[in-house]
């Protein structure tokens, strides 16, 4: 049979090379992440020398140093990394599911829902209760997710991603109006804290928040990484993906729900930190292509590192004052992105 007779040609890269290249790139990102975390540990308002920071780990430092390093900086670094990674991963997944390179984690209304929850908690004077703002934000985010999904599923039996996108955008706009209404009713103090919440920050990091987020993020990440191949197929079209054996409806629904929950958790913990979920996956696509088997874990590592470094800048540039981290992610991220865009052939 002639199909079996032809010998493989040498022009195409052998799959082993591709696998090694993927592993190499991920290892590189991991090393950069570790280096960034170590660097961030030594930076801060207290001006601790690196040797002193090291001693905090070995137990030879004084109590203040130990508190600063182990209870303030370390959880904050961990939270920034997890939240940034989760947002970038969710952004990459949304771009694939919606087949739209402009999609980002907040495009489907999840952030709007979270903000309504958080702002309502602040405005109605419930912010003093520990953890309540986060719970309200999480409830708002999950509510928004379910609302958008319900609208999208109502229109047809199958999940039409164009309807999903439209539903997300209009629900987001509706929530924005609700937020403005809530802010109108707020006094100056709650107005201020509501606006600060919406800017996003990892300053409130504690080991408890970080641990909660980790428990939540790890399984979500595993599920999303397992969807990498079907998401590759979705990029060439839903019908083609079906013809190639993907269970398209299940993949879309699962990817949408898990990515939304990931965003909900990140927003509840840190507020609405912008640009990471759009720019990080995009920059990685431009640099390394759109194979989601590489793109998804790379977005996780890259997004984590990016937010971690942005937060380090936010807390040290004008120390002891803090800049909103969302401002840094945009101010630094956008020029880097433009540079990448100009260097690459048109997508």
């Amino acid at each position, binding site marked *: *049979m*002639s*199909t*079996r007779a*032809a010998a*493989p*040609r040498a*022009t*195409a*890269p*052998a*799959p082993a090379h*591709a*696998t090694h290249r993927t592993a190499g790139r991920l290892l590189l990102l991991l090393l950069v992440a570790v280096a960034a975390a170590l660097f961030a540990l030594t930076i801060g308002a207290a001006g601790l020398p690196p040797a002193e920071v090291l001693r905090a780990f070995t137990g030879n430092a004084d109590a203040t140093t130990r508190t600063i390093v182990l209870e303030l900086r370390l959880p904050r670094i961990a939270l920034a990394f997890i939240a940034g990674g989760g947002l970038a991963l969710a952004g990459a997944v949304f*771009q*694939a599911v919606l*087949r*739209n*390179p402009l999609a980002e984690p907040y495009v489907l209304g999840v952030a709007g829902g979270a903000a309504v929850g958080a702002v309502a908690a602040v405005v109605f004077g419930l912010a003093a209760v520990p953890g309540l703002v986060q719970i309200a934000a999480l409830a708002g985010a999950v509510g928004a997710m379910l609302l958008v999904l319900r609208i999208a599923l109502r229109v047809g039996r199958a999940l039409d991603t164009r309807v999903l996108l439209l539903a997300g955008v209009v629900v987001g706009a509706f929530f924005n109006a609700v937020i403005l209404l809530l802010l109108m009713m707020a006094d100056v103090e709650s107005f201020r804290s509501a606006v600060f919440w919406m800017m996003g920050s990892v300053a409130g990091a504690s080991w408890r928040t970080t641990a909660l987020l980790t428990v939540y993020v790890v399984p979500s990440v595993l599920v999303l990484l*397992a*969807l*990498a*191949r*079907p998401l*590759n*197929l*979705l*990029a*060439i*079209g839903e*019908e*083609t993906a*079906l*013809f*190639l*054996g*993907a*269970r398209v409806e299940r993949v879309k629904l699962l990817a949408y729900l898990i990515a939304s929950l990931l965003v909900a958790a990140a927003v509840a913990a840190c507020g609405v930190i912008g640009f990471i979920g759009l720019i990080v996956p995009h920059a990685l*696509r431009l640099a390394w*292509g*759109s*194979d989601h088997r590489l793109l998804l874990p790379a977005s996780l590592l890259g997004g984590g590192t990016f937010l971690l470094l942005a937060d380090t800048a936010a807390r040290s540039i004008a120390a002891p004052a803090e800049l909103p981290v969302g401002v840094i992610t945009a101010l630094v991220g956008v020029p880097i992105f433009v540079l990448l865009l100009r260097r690459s*052939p048109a*997508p």
Partner: protein
Amino acid sequence: MSRSARELVFAAEGVTFRYAHGDRNAVDGVDLHVHESEIVALLGPNGSGKSTLLRLLVGALRPDSGAVALWSRPLREWKREAVARRVGVVAQLEELAFPLTTREMVAMGRYPHLGAWRREGAADAAAIDRAMQRCGISELARRSVLELSGGERQRVRVARALAQEPRALLLDEPTASLDIAHEMSLFELLAELRADGVTVVVVTHNINVAARYADRLVLLHRGRTAATGTPADVLTRATVEEVYDWPVMIRTEDGAPQIIPRRASGAHQGERRRT
């Protein structure tokens, strides 16, 4: 070997399908039986239900009534991966959301064999390389699919279906954007595949090429089967003129009937030919 002795690959019994806002059934009570290593061409005017029938055969659409079976097993009992391991589809429209290289695109044909986690092994790489070679696109391996011409892109998609190593191939107007040489070489490839035991169902508007390569033609008209059988049975002047609502002449070349549509004013053209 007689047709009935060979395995039944696709069996559609009285399938009917209407689109949500359609004013008539797109496919209306069609029976279709396709046997192993047969080339069957679905012909018919625009909107006659060819593409819809193709989608029904592979389960991209569910019939409102009637039943479809693959290898004598009802379609609903098949898992998507299992269908994709046996049936390759080259559909009409496809829009890439993100850039991919030619090889990456063809490699997607291995998905039904690999699932979510399994690594691409030597057998997969060999299948991909073989498919690219058969479609004459090995040299394009590292090029972005978005940079390719329409014809090259079409061959990439055929190669992707071949990388599935399917036992049956469904193609929806696969030569719509191809020049004569590429169209003919694609049909030559289909004939080769048929000799290897692959079953082929192809939707096409090129009646003459279909008549030369297909074992059987199915002529659809407003969702129904107008005629079915060998090219000589189906392509009679009366049938073709009725279905396409246009005057034609029929010649026989290479033993196959060939259609020549007449100019609207037959007399005028007749005069011209005489000169």
